[in-house]
């Protein structure tokens, strides 16, 4: 089962996701995000826009490679993979 991890700041908004190993059934990125939303309602609203595409300041990697399809999120997340969710930083 794939593992989900994310930038620590997201735990601030979704504390229910912190300090636990999130493992979900393998599937497409959009399926995994929906499964996270079951655990943490509102999660998909935070990372996806109203058309279901990835918000511009959010990004995802599967096994440390950025996802290709930001619009429909069809990239497959295999069983042994880690899906990592991060966002743009502007501070300097």
């Amino acid at each position, binding site marked *: 089962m794939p593992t989900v991890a994310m*930038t620590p700041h997201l735990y601030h908004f979704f504390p229910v996701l912190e300090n636990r190993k999130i493992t979900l059934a393998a599937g497409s990125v959009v399926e995994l995000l929906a499964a996270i939303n079951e655990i943490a309602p509102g999660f998909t609203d935070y990372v996806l826009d109203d058309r279901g595409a990835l918000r*511009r*300041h959010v990004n995802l*990697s599967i096994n440390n490679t950025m996802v*290709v399809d930001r619009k429909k999120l069809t990239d497959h997340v295999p069983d042994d993979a880690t899906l990592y969710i*991060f966002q*743009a930083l*502007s*501070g*300097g």
Partner: protein
Amino acid sequence: MDQHDANRYSRQIRLPSVGEHGQQSLLDARCLIIGMGGLGSPAAMYLAAAGVGQLVISDFDRVEDSNLQRQIAHRSVDIGEPKAISAKRTLEALNPRCRITAIDWQLDDEELADQVAKADVVLDCSDNFATRFALNRQAFQSGTPLVSGAAIRTEGQIATFLPQDGGPCYQCIYPGDLEGEESCALEGVLAPVVGVMGSMQALQALLVLLGRTAGLAGRLLLFDALAMEWQSVRVPRDEACPVCAGRKAVHDGD
């Protein structure tokens, strides 16, 4: 290189990856650093100390009390001074042979394009998305390598973009017009986090100047200070990217 420089930079010259030839490349180099805050301070100080010949530093803000916790190029006596001027003093004291040009006004598009084109490498140490996208566009227009760093709270990101290698750009990672800008003023930042990221920017800039870019190409590094973890994400080029799509690699002799 004279005896003074050979002695001053001896610990670097000793490295097979640098040598006299590499150190001479640093002495001959010109770096543009946008932002003299938390990232720009350590980045500029390390580049000056390491013997980069010319630094152009740009910031139109003034030093405030609340900057001093992390913006180490400035001191208490500099409060109220333009950051570019304050940092210039620090850098000149650190290495009098390093030529420092301080720009304490907001560069317009034309001035920015000119400065980026004149530089051998550009460091994005800015604190806003508009500057990040503008610098990325200019870097790819002129083919200048860009070391982009960001830090806030207890996290940081860094990536070097190499237009001449046909690699990805900042906009391949984050499509333009970003919403949800965050600032260290509102969100907070743990002081050494910007030090880690700014120092890493200086290091990547030196690797660019030394021609050692194999480890930099197409990589985004994410730093989580609380977990003490780095992640390395491979960044493919977005074939529809409005900034870099269609750009071919430029090789010596082409």
